[in-house]
Every structure is written in C-alpha cells, then in structure tokens.
C-alpha cells in the first residue's frame, strides 16, 4: 500500500479515528501506567499527537479541497428511503464541513499543548493514571461534540465532556474551592445538557429524526411554530450557559480558575465546542428559517398603516447583541477587580467570548450583505485567536503557580528577573489578548470593529473601550507579577520546566504566525468556516442528497 493510499484511507476514516484513538488511549492508559509512569506520559502525548495529526489531515482536506466528509458508523447508508417516499435517518453519522474542520484545528492544538504541558505541570501528583484517562476522555468528548452530525450523539458527547472535565476541575481534592468549583460545574452542565436533551426530544417527537441535516431540512418555524420555537429557546439557553454567556457565566471563573492549568486549556476547547454547537443550532438547524417572518405588527399612524415585519433574524440579533455587550462589559469590569490571577484571566476569557458573539450578532442583523460577511469572518477568526491567547495566558499563570505556589497577585512581584521566557510569553499573550498589532488579536478585532460599526457605532465604541480595558488589566498583571523589585521569598525561583516552556512556546509561535499572516489564515481557514455558516444547504444536501 502506498503512502498516498494510506493517507487517503486515514482521511476517509478520520472522523471516526479522531474520537476512537483518544478513547482507546484513555482506557489503555491505566493498563500502561502499571508499567511505568514515564512511558504512560509519552504514550498519552503520542496518542494526542496522532489524533491531532489526523485532525489536521481531515481539516486540510475539508478546508483546502472543499470536500464535505460524512462518516456512517457501522457501514451502509445513513438515510433509508421508505416505500412511502419519505426518508428516515437511522444511523449515527459524523459530518464534517468547514465549520467543524475549523473547530477541530482549535481542539487539536489545545489538546496537544495541554498534554505536553501536563507532563511537568502535574508531576508529583498522585492518581495521574486517572488524570490522563480523564484528559483523553475529555479530548474525545470535545472532538465528538465538534464532529457529530446527530443531535442525540451530540448530547452524549456533551455529557462525556462535562463529566470528565468536572472530575478534572475537582482533581486537586485537597483544596475545598476546587471541589466546590467542580460541583458547580457539574450542576450547571447537567442542567444545561438536560434542557438540550429536552429540546432534542421535542424535535424528535415532531420530526422523527435526530440527524442534524434531516432536521434542518424539515424544521418549519412558521407552521410548527410552538414546538420549534420552544426547542430553539431550550437549545440556545442550554448551550449559551455552557459557552459562558453573561449572565450565565458565573461557573466559568470558578471552573477555569480552580482547575489545574493544563486542564483549563482543554476546558477552553470544550467551551468553544459549546459555542460551535450554538452556531450549528442557530445557523444550520434553523438556518433556512432565519429570514422567516414571525409576525407582522400593524400600527395606525395618522391614517396610514405601518407594518413592522418581525423576522427571526432580527429577534436573534437583538438577543445575541444584547447578551454579547453584557458579556464583554461584565467580563472586563469583573476582571479588572480580581486579584486572583487565574480568575482574572477567566473573566477576560468571558469578555473574549462576547466579542465572537457580538460579531455573529452583527452578521445576523444584516444577513446576506457584504459587511455581514466581514463580521462573520472576524467573529470566527476571533474564536481561534481567543483560544490561543487565553490559552497562553492560562499556561503562563500555571507556570507562575508551579514555581511560586501563589495565585494571588498581591503576593507576586519581580518574577521577570528569574523567569525570562515566561515573561516573554506573557507579553506576547498580553499584546494578543488586548488586540495590539501585530498580534493575531488585532486582525480579528479590526474586522469586528469595522463590521459592527455598520450596525451601530456605539457598539463599536464599547467594544474598543473594553479592548483597551483588557490591555489595562493585563498591564496590571504584568506590573504586579513580573516587574518590581525582587521579593526575598522568590529568590530561589527557577524558570519553568522545559515541557511547559515548549507548550507555551508552541502557542506563542502560532500567535505570532497568525498575527503576521492574517490574510493567509482568513482566506484558507476562516472563510470556509464562514461559508459553512452562511450556506447550510450544502450541509443538508450532502446527507439527503438526491434521495
């Protein structure tokens, strides 16, 4: 078998392999760790690396060659045409279009970096075989959420992810606060997921299908208004809670702040998988209904009748933009006040989620027009930028914690003298997260500012102001943690271990690469994803096809 043939085969089976390899690795880990701890760590890194490699192959094929992949588990066709003429989707299938491919790139980067980082970061903890099992399960669940084309399957992966990540958040069981954060997270995510399941059940009862493409084809918000709208509301609110939208964000600083840093970086991936699911629901499942009129409202103004045409996209845009502005402002203001480094970054992460949401809201508002496309590009570009920036900052926070065992900013100072590389990485993350040129954050934020200016200039102003505040927040961290005189307690502090530096360095390189060549990234990675959001017909027709 030639190499090309092998790669072709791998790409064909990649949607299954991407989740199967981490799953297999997860359950092999306890067996391997009976041999040797070092072998286990390397095995886990290799597993995640292989998964990431396959993910890159798949997303290369989807993004560059423009193919849509679908994979049916157990073989055969996914949609069975009944003699009566209707079709019936029966098997579980994965479907990968531009948006999925874009998300699995993020997932692969974060998972790989997180695992490399944990090599040194978690050294010395007990129960590491369970830690690595849970990490791999979480990665498998995250990829499953990003790849699946079946609503119920999505729920299952959502729960796999939340259970394993909850156990990881509470991994340091000697700290009361991390157990408490784990409990909060499991309550929140279970209730969110149960409401998602309720919505799935509603849709299943109505349309007798769980397949996303089949559902998207048959959802009709005008005729079956009540059930569809209820399901939409349940899905949006459940997934928005998992994605950390204000005012349902309170679990996020706890979970991000108390988890080990190596877990936090993968948690970012799972949060963004929820965000992806939100987009998938709003714009693929309900995509063809976006311009439907919900209601006409008639006014009598001086004899002439004025008719307001309330469309779904208007209502959507209103909800999304209001929530997004709330998210940005509350996130930034709360971050400014925190003194715990990781909680502060977590609030900044909330604010960053608001930016993506804002851009998508702007697109929904002006659906179909040119600057809508710019907004969508900016929003999607910002997803990957946010993952990298916030991820890097969390890793730096973890490195600081590793060497000083301190989380409070009040007790730090002068760390730049002993931790040169970490300081450099922090500065890169600082510039990127606050949208300073030439880092990647600037490019996406520029796109967002310019496009939401067309919706309302005030939104743009708020977004820019909050971005400046973000800069101020991290300058505060830079000043109080890295600058200043030497603190005698930290005299013997050493640079972070090499695997942590490698992990941070990888993300920093990616940030600089994305920053220096923004158009390359936007054209090749972001635009296919944006097109997938705009045009849901190819997603549907790939499954239903001519049948």
């Amino acid at each position: 078998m030639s190499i090309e043939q092998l790669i072709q085969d791998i790409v064909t089976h990649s949607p299954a392999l991407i989740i199967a390899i981490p799953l297999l690795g997860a359950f092999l880990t306890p067996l391997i760790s009976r041999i040797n701890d070092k072998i286990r760590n390397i095995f886990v890194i290799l597993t995640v690396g292989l998964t990431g490699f396959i993910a890159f192959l798949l997303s290369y094929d989807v993004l560059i060659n423009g193919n849509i992949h679908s994979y049916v588990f157990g073989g055969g066709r996914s949609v069975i045409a009944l003699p009566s003429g209707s079709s019936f989707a029966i098997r579980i299938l994965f479907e990968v279009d531009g948006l999925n491919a874009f998300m699995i790139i993020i997932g692969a980067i974060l998972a790989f970096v997180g695992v490399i980082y944990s090599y040194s970061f978690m050294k010395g903890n007990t129960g590491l075989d369970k830690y690595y099992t849970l990490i791999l399960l979480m990665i498998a669940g995250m990829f499953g959420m990003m790849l699946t084309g079946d609503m119920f399957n999505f729920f299952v992966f959502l729960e796999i992810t939340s259970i394993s990540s909850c156990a990881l958040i509470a991994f340091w069981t000697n700290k009361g606060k991390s157990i408490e954060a784990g409990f909060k997270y499991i309550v929140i995510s279970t209730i969110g997921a149960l409401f998602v399941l309720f919505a799935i059940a509603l849709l299943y009862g109505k349309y007798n299908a769980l397949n996303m493409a089949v559902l998207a084809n048959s959802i009709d918000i005008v005729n079956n208004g009540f059930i569809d709208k209820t399901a939409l509301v349940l899905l949006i609110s459940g997934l928005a809670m998992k994605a950390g939208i204000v005012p349902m964000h309170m679990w996020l600083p706890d979970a991000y702040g108390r988890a080990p840093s190596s877990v936090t970086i993968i948690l970012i991936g799972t949060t963004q998988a929820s965000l992806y699911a939100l987009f998938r629901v709003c714009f693929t499942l309900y995509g063809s209904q976006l311009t439907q009129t919900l209601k006409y409202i008639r006014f009598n103004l001086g004899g002439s009748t004025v008719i307001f045409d309330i469309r779904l996209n208007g209502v959507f845009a209103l909800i999304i933009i209001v929530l997004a502005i709330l998210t940005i402002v509350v996130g930034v203001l709360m971050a400014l006040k925190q003194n715990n480094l990781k909680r502060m970054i977590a609030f900044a992460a909330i604010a960053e989620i608001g930016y993506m949401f804002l851009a998508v809201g702007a697109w929904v508002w002006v659906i179909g027009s040119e600057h809508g496309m710019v907004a969508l590009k900016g929003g999607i570009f910002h997803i990957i930028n946010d993952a990298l920036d916030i991820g890097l900052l969390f890793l730096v926070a973890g490195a600081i914690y590793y060497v000083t065992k301190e989380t409070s900013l009040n007790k730090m100072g002068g760390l730049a003298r002993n931790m040169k590389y970490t300081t450099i990485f922090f500065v890169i993350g600082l510039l990127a997260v606050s949208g300073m040129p030439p880092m990647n954050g600037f490019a996406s934020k520029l796109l967002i500012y310019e496009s939401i200016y067309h919706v309302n200039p005030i939104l743009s102003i708020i977004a820019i102001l909050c971005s400046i505040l973000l800069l101020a927040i991290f300058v505060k961290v830079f000043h109080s943690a890295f600058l200043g005189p030497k603190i005698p307690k930290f005299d013997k502090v050493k640079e972070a271990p090499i695997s942590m530096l490698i992990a941070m360095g990888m993300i920093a390189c990616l940030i600089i690469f994305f920053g220096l060549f923004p158009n390359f990234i936007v054209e090749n990675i972001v635009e296919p994803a944006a097109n997938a959001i705009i045009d849901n017909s190819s997603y549907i027709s790939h499954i239903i096809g001519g049948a």
Partner: protein
Amino acid sequence: MIYNIPFIAVAALVIIGLYAVIFKRNLIKIVIGITLIESGVNLFLITLGYREGSTAPIYTNSPAGTMSLPVPQALTLTSIVIGVAVLALMLSLSVHIYRHYGTLDVRKIGKEEEQ
C-alpha cells in the same frame, strides 16, 4: 386526556426539580432536584415512543400488532447511563465537600478567604 397525563407528569417533574435546585440550600437536595429533572426528561422521551395499544419492541415471539418505537427507549437508556455517572460524580463531590467544610449548605461552602 388519559394520554396527556405523562406530559403533565413531565412538566411537574421538571418544575419540581428546578424548584429544588433553585430554592433548596442542601447539596443533597440539589442533587435530588437534578435527578428529578432527569427523570422528567427521560419520561418525556419514553412517552414519545408509545402508541396506543402497542407492544414492547421485542422481535422474537411478539404478538402481531403495532410495536412502540424502540429508538426513544434506546435514547432513554443512554440518558439513564449518563445519569448514573453524573449522580455518582455529584455524590462523591458532596462527600468531599462535606469532609472539607463539615457542612452541605451551599451558602457556607467555598466562602473562606484566600491567603
């Protein structure tokens, strides 16, 4: 009317569960509330698959006539399995919290100042 009773039960279970989660202060009661919501959703799923006068979907030796749809039952089963895992996790976290703080009151846990 008689066939609407399961749906009324679903609404009642979900609302009682939400009430327990929001207004009860004991962690165990919150866990009970979550399981109530979960059973409500499971009941809803299982009710969707039932048709009047249908038999259980067992292929062998079944009497002739309509069968109830097996897919919702499979879904419910999966959801129950997940529920078991979530329940075990929540209870073990409650054990840990009780050990650490000596109380299960949500207002009292996690309030200690950080050094």
